[in-house]
């Protein structure tokens, strides 16, 4: 055992270890803290368990859910904990024989007077210690926790179950070790071991149901460890021994394999020997960026093949030497998946190079981000200009442009080149997108199409690209509507017009090209009397209005605003702020066509509420975004929030108590003249682990049933509704949190004292407590009469 190496291994991974430990402790704490309520509601629990199909009960060992042992097996030991331990074992196992080798640091370690066997055994010891240590943490936490919540499970059983779980981690970790030792590649080790683990898990889970799997199960490491039901039966020595033997055998095999392996050189992407035999293709990076001093390319990129071990150009450009303007030095990032940049120095300033420092980054492959860092590192050392080259494949917002976006962050110039076989029609689209992508961070953007630059950002644009300040941002507007111009115009263009004597603003903002044109068209279309801004000489014609509708923000005369938002959240925010600033109180702001992430929609809505907290009224999101919004669990994004000057939020689960709460809220709303948001929150019952989703009721089913519940509630309370304005909101998420976030800025939050008996009641009961403790507005808890 090599103590210095052992110590270093732990030190290097101390954060990861701490993370796992915290995770395990937290998981147990959460599950155990729920246990008393489960125990107290045993009847409900049994009913609930029986409501699940038999398949399910078997799979998750739900038969005795109400008992301590049943609860622990279902919640922790049937799937969650084994998966955690397998994850730990596999991630550690995968790196044992690979990471130092892949990083190249083994070059020194393995040439020290230590045998390879000792090296790898030491690292194995680290892995075993981590997995078993985590098992110990598990056992101790469970032991303490079970005493705290009074669980009456013998300590020996808990220890046995923890041991079996840790053993599962070891067994599958050993698979990773062996694959790593054989292949020398960490990714391969991870992939194979995880695949094996998943297969084993599937066999183990389905064994009670499928005969074939049942027949296989005795040979399944999962069965030897997790499957022995140590909680019920205590330690099974035989099975433990089998699992230990399995792990040990694999580890021994791994040690031997590692001892026999060749430790190949790290570093060069293309071995020099191979480089000579590679077909020398004209790499776009090398040929299309001839006048730069240094070229950073990503491994896996097109330019890779043009670089040999010393960072010298080979191939096309080198052959044409002495071409005075060929890149002189190249930097390659040879470490896929590692942050370290071995060749960063290749981009350093050389004495005498001061005059002209161009660094190009060619983003051909996936690791563009690292190339960007590479280039950024070079820039950081001088006054280099970074020029980025990206290929687009003519499919618009495809990979090429995503890469462009990344590269544009640090680049001074961005060139987008159509890939050779990409459809030509895509070029123009790609051009627009790329220009949009680069709109702010880049001084110049060039997009190539059939050898011609079709769009660039300075001045004119064939593709309809506006100057940084679009036509709408005129001086007089600036004086009259400083806020809008401040927030919209600098990013894009704002066009506006007057409509029926009231302000109508068509602010167009977004990363898309043709903004100015869109704005004009929109202004013209929506505002009968919209003023058209005179175009500045030299500005290109507006783009066609094929995608106009998707990018226009219109504040209608009556104060209703509709925002059809572009993709980019950041820009969207500006537009939303602008819109919100100009909406009349009590009006509606609709945000539609949110393409992209829920975070954008959320952020946008936040922007709007920040500007005019009382105004944002109605948020519409299209289906795609809605789905992601739901995923993000932002309750208030989901539905319609029609907001008056006063707002009351009431949560309901359909129970009698909550009906009373709703009735009370409606009456209160009537008295106060407030709008009432009736919210029904649903979520998966927490007893289910997120596995075998295929057989579970789908989100859509659950959501539909949640909507029925709410509809039913509204039907029942219809008599109390009066003239109160009501929003019906169904949302998914943790109940209390959803209610709390919905009640932000509200005048009152109303909840029922306790909902259903049984399981749901358990949940809602705690909701009332949480809400009372954390709400930022007054809370009324209503009980049934």
């Amino acid at each position: 055992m090599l103590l210095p190496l052992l110590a270093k291994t732990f030190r290097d991974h101390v954060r990861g270890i701490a993370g796992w430990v915290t995770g395990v402790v937290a998981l147990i704490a959460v599950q155990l803290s729920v246990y008393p309520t489960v125990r107290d509601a045993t009847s409900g629990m049994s009913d609930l368990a029986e409501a699940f199909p038999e398949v399910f009960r078997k799979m998750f060992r739900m038969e005795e859910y109400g008992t301590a042992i049943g609860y622990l097996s279902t919640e922790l030991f049937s799937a969650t904990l084994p998966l955690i331990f397998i994850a730990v074992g596999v991630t550690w196992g995968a790196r044992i024989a690979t990471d130092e080798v892949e990083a190249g640091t083994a070059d020194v370690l393995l040439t020290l007077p230590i045998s390879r066997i000792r090296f790898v055994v030491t690292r194995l010891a680290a892995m075993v210690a981590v997995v078993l240590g985590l098992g110990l943490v598990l056992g101790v936490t469970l032991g303490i926790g079970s005493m705290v919540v009074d669980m009456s499970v013998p300590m020996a059983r808990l220890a046995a179950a923890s041991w079996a779980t840790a053993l599962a981690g070891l067994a599958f970790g050993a698979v990773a070790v062996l694959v790593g030792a054989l292949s020398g590649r960490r990714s391969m080790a991870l992939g194979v071991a995880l695949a094996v683990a998943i297969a084993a898990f599937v066999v183990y889970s389905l064994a009670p149901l499928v005969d074939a799997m049942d027949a296989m199960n005795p040979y399944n490491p999962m069965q030897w460890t997790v499957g022995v039901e140590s909680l019920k039966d205590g330690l099974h020595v035989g099975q433990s021994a089998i699992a230990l033997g399995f792990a040990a055998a694999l580890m021994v095999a791994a040690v031997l394999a590692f001892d026999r392996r060749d430790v190949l050189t790290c570093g060069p992407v293309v071995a020099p020997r191979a480089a000579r035999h590679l077909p020398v293709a004209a790499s776009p990076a090398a040929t299309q960026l001839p006048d730069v001093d240094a070229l950073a390319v990503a491994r896996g990129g097109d330019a890779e093949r043009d670089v040999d071990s010393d960072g010298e150009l080979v191939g096309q450009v080198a052959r044409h030497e002495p071409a005075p303007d060929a890149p002189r030095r190249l930097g390659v990032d040879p470490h896929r998946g590692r942050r370290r940049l071995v060749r960063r120095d290749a981009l350093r300033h050389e004495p005498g190079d001061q005059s002209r420092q161009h660094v190009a980054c060619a983003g051909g492959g996936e690791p563009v981000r690292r190339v960007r860092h590479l280039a950024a590192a070079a820039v950081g050392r001088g006054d280099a200009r970074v020029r980025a080259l990206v290929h687009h494949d003519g499919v618009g917002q495809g990979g090429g442009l995503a890469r462009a976006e990344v590269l544009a962050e640090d680049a001074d110039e961005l060139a987008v080149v159509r890939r050779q076989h990409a459809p030509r029609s895509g070029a123009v689209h790609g051009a627009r997108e790329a220009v949009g992508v680069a709109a702010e961070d880049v001084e110049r953007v060039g997009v190539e199409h059939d050898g011609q630059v079709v769009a660039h950002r300075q001045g004119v644009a064939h593709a309809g690209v506006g100057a940084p300040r679009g036509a709408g941002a005129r001086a007089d507007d600036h004086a009259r509507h400083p806020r809008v111009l401040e927030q919209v115009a600098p990013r894009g263009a704002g066009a506006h017009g007057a409509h029926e004597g009231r302000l109508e603003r068509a602010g167009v903002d977004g990363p898309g090209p043709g903004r100015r044109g869109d704005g004009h068209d929109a202004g013209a279309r929506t505002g009968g009397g919209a003023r058209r801004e005179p175009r500045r000489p030299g500005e290109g014609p507006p783009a066609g209005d094929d995608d106009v509708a998707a990018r226009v923000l219109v504040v209608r005369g009556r104060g209703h605003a509709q925002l059809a938002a572009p993709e980019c959240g950041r820009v969207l925010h500006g537009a939303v702020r602008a819109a919100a600033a100009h909406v009349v109180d009590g009006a509606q702001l609709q945000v539609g066509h949110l393409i992209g992430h829920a975070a954008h929609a959320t952020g946008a809505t936040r922007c709007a509420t920040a500007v005019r907290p009382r105004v944002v009224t109605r948020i519409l999101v299209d289906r795609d975004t809605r789905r992601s919004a739901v995923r993000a669990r932002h309750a208030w994004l989901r539905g319609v929030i029609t907001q008056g000057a006063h707002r009351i939020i009431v949560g309901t689960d359909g129970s009698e108590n909550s009906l009373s709460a709703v009735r009370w809220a409606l009456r209160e709303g009537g008295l106060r003249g407030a709008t009432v948001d009736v919210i029904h929150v649903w979520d998966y019952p927490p007893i289910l682990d997120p596995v075998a989703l295929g057989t579970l009721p789908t989100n859509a089913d659950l959501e539909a049933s949640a909507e029925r519940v709410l509809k039913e509630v509204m039907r029942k309370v219809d008599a109390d509704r009066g003239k109160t304005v009501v929003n019906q909101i169904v949302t998914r998420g943790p109940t209390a949190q959803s209610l709390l976030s919905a009640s932000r800025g509200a005048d009152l939050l109303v909840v029922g004292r306790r909902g259903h008996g049984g399981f749901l009641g358990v949940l809602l009961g705690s909701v009332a407590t949480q809400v009372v403790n954390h709400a930022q507005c007054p809370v009324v808890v209503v009980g049934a009469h």
Partner: protein
Amino acid sequence: MSDAAHRAGGAAVVAPPIVEVHGVTKRYGHDIGVADVTFDVREGEILGLLGPNGSGKTTLLRLMLGLLHVTRGRITIFGRDVADAGPTLRSRIGYLPGDLALYDQQTVWQYLRFVAALRRMDLRSSIASLCERFGLDPTRRIGDLSRGTRQKVAVVQAFMHAPDLLLLDEPTSGLDPIVQREFESLVDETRLRGATILLSSHILAEVERLADRVAVMREGCLAVVDDVAMLKSRFRRTIDLEFPSSVDPEPFRALDGVSDVHVSRRTLSCSVVGPETALLREAVARGVVGVHAHAPSLDDIFQRIIDGPPAAPAGPPAPPPAPR
């Protein structure tokens, strides 16, 4: 064995071999890394391993260290087979990898102490003195170092335990000229101490300054092993001779070792292999006014070696390798 004795006595006869490479072949799948290489490094000498990129220099060094396993053949160091006695042997070896990867998070001091600890040695004083010698601040984080400075760390790492055999893979790459000189003086001192050094490089001048003998690799084969002086004389130099008037090339063409004789106006160019005495005598006889000799460039030398008769391997191609 002292340096003087070594040089005076001729290395071949006196000094016992420290590294012996017997018919070593290394295959990677179907690619050949090195093919049937045989040579030795003798005690107290500096052997320069020359060759273009990809010629198998690094492969050879890594085979000696046991990082790679030979497909065929045998390597012995200090008289013991590398395959059997790797760890024991390596305690007496210092290795400087061609592309040293370090732990970015550690400081120089931490790294060197870590390596020393794995060697089970306390090398604080020698680390400190070497760091000082190379102007290396041991408290700096390795991730912040430039390439040249990292290379200094590599040098310290290889020399700090005063090994008897040093395997240096392109040791001066990334070092600036001043540090290179310091490095060369360190190598000289090490040799005087009696250590043996195998130094791979593709820079002829460096090898010429330091090495006693040179082994030239190309495409995995050993092309030449020879004394530096002998090697130099074996390569053609191009010599331009200026004469006061136009000159007849024929007498020059007749000389031994002279070829490629061209005359343009009053300048005669030729290539010379071996001693230049006859050529100069002839030139003086014809009233030469200027002599320009062009040292052979590395490219030239490799070109010559490649053009020349193959030095190795002699036998038929190796049979397919045994599975590793």
